[in-house]
């Protein structure tokens, strides 16, 4: 099968055109306009076996030229000459023959003359035997299955040569040496080609490398696999370190079958993006061996173009054919950065959920959604990203309280005017936002309109009546919005006079002024001392009165930031005697300190979450903690005891978060699911399954309709909380997700990954807005400022960084780099460029605040835009 495009094409045209959509049956072209899915050979069979079968039945394709070509290649193989086979491999191959061949038990291990290559491979021999047997059925006189041990490879060859079966070609082409040569040829071709195509072709190397490596391992050529890896992996390390590492652990065929990554490579298609012209060049090379190759190298090093060289190319073609999927774009090669070539590419098949609507799944904009996250996102329909509605009674009550406020009369007037004008349920919310938006010349409608507002029916079920704490919270929300310090990064560039010289201690005066504005936030850092690696997570309560810290020693420590005493209840009281606040006070503990240990977990505590019901108006009453002991525990901060342990996950729970409305919460676990719980029920209400690796973090959308998850499979997803289905998938990171955040205005979503980049996503379209880089160690935590103008990240590189959400971002201009850093004699080729893209700071990095030696594990922003960060101080020499 694999040789068929070569021969057929030769008869058609010298310079093939990929987008013709007519005559490229075996190379799966996915062009944006012309979809050639229809033809029979185009069927996505999945495995090699089916492909082979395919070929057998497609007899019409077999032309006489093709048969001749095959016969020739078989002959070439049989008389393989020395220069093609390096001497070391001969030794290796013959050594290999012994053990596994006997286990196959069907053929004699003695291959005459120690013919290296495919004939010494036991698998191939057995396959050959099969084929021979098959052909023998038609032609008598050849040894049959009953006496397989007598068959020698040469016998088989001669017999098959006569029949000219297509299978032989397949089998012979699995010679591992061809893989090595083929890969080298491809690399040479890419490097020897035009610079403008290099960005485009480089991503192609990785999947082919992986498949070749897996193939070598699968066939038991451990040593060649290792040397192949050693030779070629360093060039790919820059982008694919994690995958390469996983591949490097696979050395036995059993490992290949048990490794999830290898299985994904074997079962999914690797998506590669390419321009139209680039793709036609590639096809040209694959079939003709032309274009970009260094002169003479094809002849001298790899034998004749028609012989080994072509066969090596065939191995590449096999992979390209069966395992790659091309996303041919219309854009111009030179106009696209190297990063864009890799966006939404890779093994994304399994990362994209299966669409619920199969008819829609087939084609959206002419693209199969199984390989296009954008198509998947598009067909999921619009999201209701507007702020959550309040019940009418609660809203009225809140307004009444606000109106009674003495010193805010002006705003109260505003309030009532709005309310009378239209009965919009989000009125108050918008009012709060009016305050912040107006001075910047934006119309309030840009904040709240343009997003579909959910109705009460869309929300998770809530208690029908509101409590006084709800009113307090909502009132406080409005106050917070009014007193919010505006963070406006644009001031940074407009007003350079604000910069102080370092001696003037910038006063806190701005904090106390009524409508303060600042370019950058004020950050208060809480540093843990004497923690000895033990601090896993920490969280501030929303009203900033409590700080909770989860330790690897399985406990949670609670601090009162107001230095109040944290008192629980005595354990020796009679419930019948408690009737009123005074009697409740009586059973409180007599002594207390401003810190308290909560003991209950039996494994490291990985995440904490304070209940949001009190908002900024009242201290939280409950705390959730997630731990490696598979449980999530609910702690009452009244009694300071563990109230419930939620069991359901069968693996460590990595993250937990309350929904913005309280009552419900979500957990993320190593068992590849995220779950939705109600604090009142013991079992999970929803299971969000679909990630192909650990779910590392969860984050509710501010209106609590959606839940975002970040996973070790390098993707993030957005789930509909009510229905439990995936609404959006965000593909673009190169490593596990370490932190996610959703913006308070409901539009954006940010994710940080071990690839040290922070991606900003547009929720409604599911597309990446930009990628921000600058951190030099894993990013532990992310948060948006309360006005969504800024993103603040905390990292293990001991810094807190602020990022501009609104600016377009992008890498710094090359000129700005300090001179002398480019080494002499190093050409600014693709690899160097890529490095720059990944590690250089992007221009939207507003500020970096280093700490002394404190990796930041938590960053939070209060509703008034004060930033709180925390982290453990690492003594300089821990050992």
């Amino acid at each position, binding site marked *: 099968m694999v040789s068929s495009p070569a021969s057929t094409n030769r008869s058609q045209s010298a310079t093939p055109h990929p987008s013709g959509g007519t005559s490229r049956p075996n190379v799966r072209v996915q062009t944006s306009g012309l979809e050639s899915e229809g033809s029979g050979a185009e069927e996505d069979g999945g495995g090699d076996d089916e492909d082979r079968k395919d070929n057998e039945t497609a007899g019409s394709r077999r032309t006489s030229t093709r048969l001749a070509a095959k016969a020739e290649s078989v002959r070439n193989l049989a008389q393989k000459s020395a220069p093609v086979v390096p001497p070391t491999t001969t030794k290796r191959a013959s050594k290999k023959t012994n053990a596994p061949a006997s286990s196959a038990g069907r053929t004699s291990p003695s291959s005459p003359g120690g013919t290296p290559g495919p004939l010494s491979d036991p698998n191939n021999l057995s396959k050959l035997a099969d084929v021979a047997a098959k052909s023998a059925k038609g032609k008598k006189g050849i040894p049959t299955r009953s006496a397989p041990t007598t068959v020698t490879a040469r016998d088989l060859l001669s017999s098959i040569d006569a029949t000219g079966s297509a299978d032989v070609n397949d089998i012979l082409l699995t010679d591992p040496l061809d893989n090595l040569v083929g890969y080298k040829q491809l690399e040479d071709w890419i490097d020897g080609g035009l610079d403008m195509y290099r960005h485009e072709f480089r991503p192609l190397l990785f999947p082919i490398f992986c498949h070749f490596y897996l193939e070598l391992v699968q066939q038991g050529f451990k040593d060649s696999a290792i040397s192949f890896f050693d030779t070629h992996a360093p060039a790919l390390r820059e982008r694919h370190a994690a995958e390469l590492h996983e591949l490097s652990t*696979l050395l036995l065929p059993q490992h290949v079958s048990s490794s999830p990554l290898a299985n994904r490579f074997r079962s999914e298609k690797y998506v590669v993006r390419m321009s139209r012209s680039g793709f036609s060049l590639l096809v040209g090379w694959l079939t003709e061996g032309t274009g970009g190759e260094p002169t003479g190298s094809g002849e001298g090093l790899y034998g004749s173009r028609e012989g080994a060289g072509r066969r090596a190319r065939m191995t590449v073609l096999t992979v390209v054919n069966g395992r790659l999927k091309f996303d041919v774009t219309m854009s111009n090669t030179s106009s696209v950065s190297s990063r864009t070539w890799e966006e939404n590419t890779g093994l994304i098949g399994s990362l994209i959920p299966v669409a619920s609507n199969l008819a829609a799944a087939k084609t959206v904009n002419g693209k199969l959604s199984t390989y296009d996250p954008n198509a998947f996102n598009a067909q999921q329909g619009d999201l209701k990203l507007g702020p959550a509605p309040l019940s009418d009674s609660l809203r009225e009550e809140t307004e009444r309280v606000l109106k009674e406020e003495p010193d805010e009369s002006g705003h109260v007037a505003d309030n009532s005017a709005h309310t009378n004008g239209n009965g919009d349920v989000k009125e108050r919310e918008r009012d709060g936002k009016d305050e912040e938006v107006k001075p910047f010349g934006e119309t309030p409608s840009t904040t709240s309109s343009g997003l579909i507002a959910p109705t009460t029916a869309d929300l998770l079920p809530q208690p029908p009546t509101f409590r006084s704490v709800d009113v307090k919270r909502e009132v406080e929300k409005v106050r917070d919005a009014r007193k919010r310090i505006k963070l406006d990064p644009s001031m940074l560039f407009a007003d350079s006079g604000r910069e102080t010289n370092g001696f003037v201690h910038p006063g806190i005066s701005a904090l106390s002024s009524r409508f303060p504005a600042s370019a950058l936030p004020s950050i208060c850092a809480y540093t843990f001392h004497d923690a000895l690696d033990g*601090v896993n997570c920490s969280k501030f309560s929303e009203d900033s009165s409590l700080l909770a810290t989860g330790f690897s020693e399985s406990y949670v420590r609670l601090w009162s930031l107001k230095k109040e005493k944290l008192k629980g209840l005595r354990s020796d009281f009679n419930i019948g005697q408690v009737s009123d606040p005074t009697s409740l006070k009586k059973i409180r503990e007599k002594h207390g300190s401003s810190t308290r240990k909560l003991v209950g977990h039996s494994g490291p505590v990985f995440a904490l979450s304070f209940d949001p019901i009190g908002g900024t108006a009242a201290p939280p009453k409950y705390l959730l903690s997630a731990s490696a002991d598979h449980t999530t525990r609910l702690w009452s901060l009244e009694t300071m005891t563990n109230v419930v342990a939620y069991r359901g996950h069968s693996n460590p729970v990595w993250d937990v978060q309350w929904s913005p409305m309280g009552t419900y919460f979500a957990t993320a676990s190593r068992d590849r699911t995220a779950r939705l719980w109600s604090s009142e029920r013991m079992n999970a209400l929803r299971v969000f399954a679909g990630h192909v690796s650990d779910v590392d973090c969860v984050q509710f959308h501010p209106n609590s309709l959606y839940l975002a998850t970040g996973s070790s499979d390098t993707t993030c997803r957005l789930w509909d909380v009510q229905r439990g289905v995936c609404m959006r998938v965000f593909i673009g990171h190169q490593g596990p997700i370490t932190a996610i955040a959703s913006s308070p205005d409901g539009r954006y979503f940010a994710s940080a990954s071990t690839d040290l980049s922070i991606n900003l996503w547009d929720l409604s379209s599911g597309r990446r807005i930009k990628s921000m880089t600058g951190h030099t*160690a894993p990013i532990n935590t992310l948060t948006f400022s309360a006005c969504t103008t800024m993103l603040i990240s905390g990292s293990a590189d001991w810094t807190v960084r602020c990022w501009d959400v609104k600016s377009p971002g992008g890498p710094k201009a090359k000129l700005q780099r300090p001179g002398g850093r480019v080494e002499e004699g190093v050409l600014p080729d693709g690899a160097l460029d890529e490095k720059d893209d990944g590690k250089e700071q992007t221009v939207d990095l507003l500020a970096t605040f280093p700490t002394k030696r404190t990796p930041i594990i938590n960053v939070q922003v209060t509703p008034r835009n004060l930033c709180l960060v925390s982290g453990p101080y690492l003594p300089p020499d821990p050992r």
Partner: protein
Amino acid sequence: MNSKPTPRPGIYKADSIIDVADSLGITNLSEEVANALASDVEYRLHQVIEEASRFTRHSRRTIMTTSDVDQAFKTLNIEPVYGHSAHTPLSFRRVQPPAGPPIYVLEDEEVDFETVLKEDPIPVPRSVRYTAHWLAIEGIQPLIPENPPPEVPAIADQPANSALVTPPPTQNGSTSSAPADSTARQVARPPSRLVSSLVPSAEERKKTAALTSLRADAGLAPVLPYITRWVGEGVVNTLRREGLEGDEMDLDRRSLDIYLDVLSALLENERLFVEPYLHQFLPPILSILLTSTLFIPQPLAPTPSDPSPSHLRTHSSSVLARLLLQHSATYPSLASRVTKTLLAALVEPGRMLGTREGALRGLISVGREAVKRGLLQASGGKIVSDDMDRAREMGMDTRGVEQALMVHPATDGVPLHPLNDMDDEDRAAADALSSGLGNTLASTIGQDATWAKSLARVISDVSLPS
């Protein structure tokens, strides 16, 4: 990520399997089995490491600990290996078997129960606590001890410097350029409040506050180049002003004094990294020290607050002494360079007495060895002595030089015993002194017998070999 080595397969060798098998008493392990086992062991190891790395990541750490591995074992349903903790690193011992490569074995220490019991109980570690501070106020990091000092801009190019500067959080060496940009902007503008409080006319309180800030503030690094330049230019301008009236002179002497205070304060500041600026510190100090006139007091009596020229020279020499004391260890060439300059000033013909005085004071602050070289080897003593004679004849004041030479012995309060002519020993000393230093100096020094004798000893030490 860049620093990560490329993963490579086949690290776990079959030999290790055979060694382990040997240790378990299996001697007939075939090559193939060992090979296959090695590959499998490697795979399993990677599985455990991969799993453990998840726990490391979720613990928000960058270094994997044994507890992570334990958790990984638990998760993979493998029996954990007990007895290892992150705080007691394992020690391996190298064993060379009769044949083959060396083997590393775990050191299995024998613990004597009695001694353990007798040992002091291990102190309970301090419990975790937290502190709060402002990491930034409206985007500007307050210059408090809790925050790291800002990065030194631009000058940190030299590798030696950048190694000493507060290291950037990670080892990849790319210090962020954003802070450098902002500090560059700050440097361009003078720290006006600081400078304004450091002029002679400023209030004493303000001056003290400014100097205290210079002495203790960690955040000065970005403005250090500016201050250095300010001092340098200020000193040059002050000294260049000639033929001014008395009032002005007082003013200038006072401002010179302040410049010296500033430099001294900067040197005192432990949080500053001043090494790159030392070469800029030296010229002002030496200029003040060696300037010939320094406005030798006119008959009009100086105000009490006005520092005398010799006070200035004393002050600058003490600053010089501090500088050398702090930094000559790291820059061995510093002292010798300074000495060379001072020697030139001491012995070059045609210099004024003031320069000689300054040179002497400077040499004294460099150290005993420098004084010896200056006065004796370079015969500076004679030159100075001659100069003094000449000056006396011209009716000029030579007290400065005499004082300069008195600085060294520092015999406060102890009454001086002049050399006794009747004593042989004393006479020998006096002779040695006058031969080495000239008569005038010798007689001056002769006022203090102890000092004279010690100097004489030194002189004889020097002159004997030659």
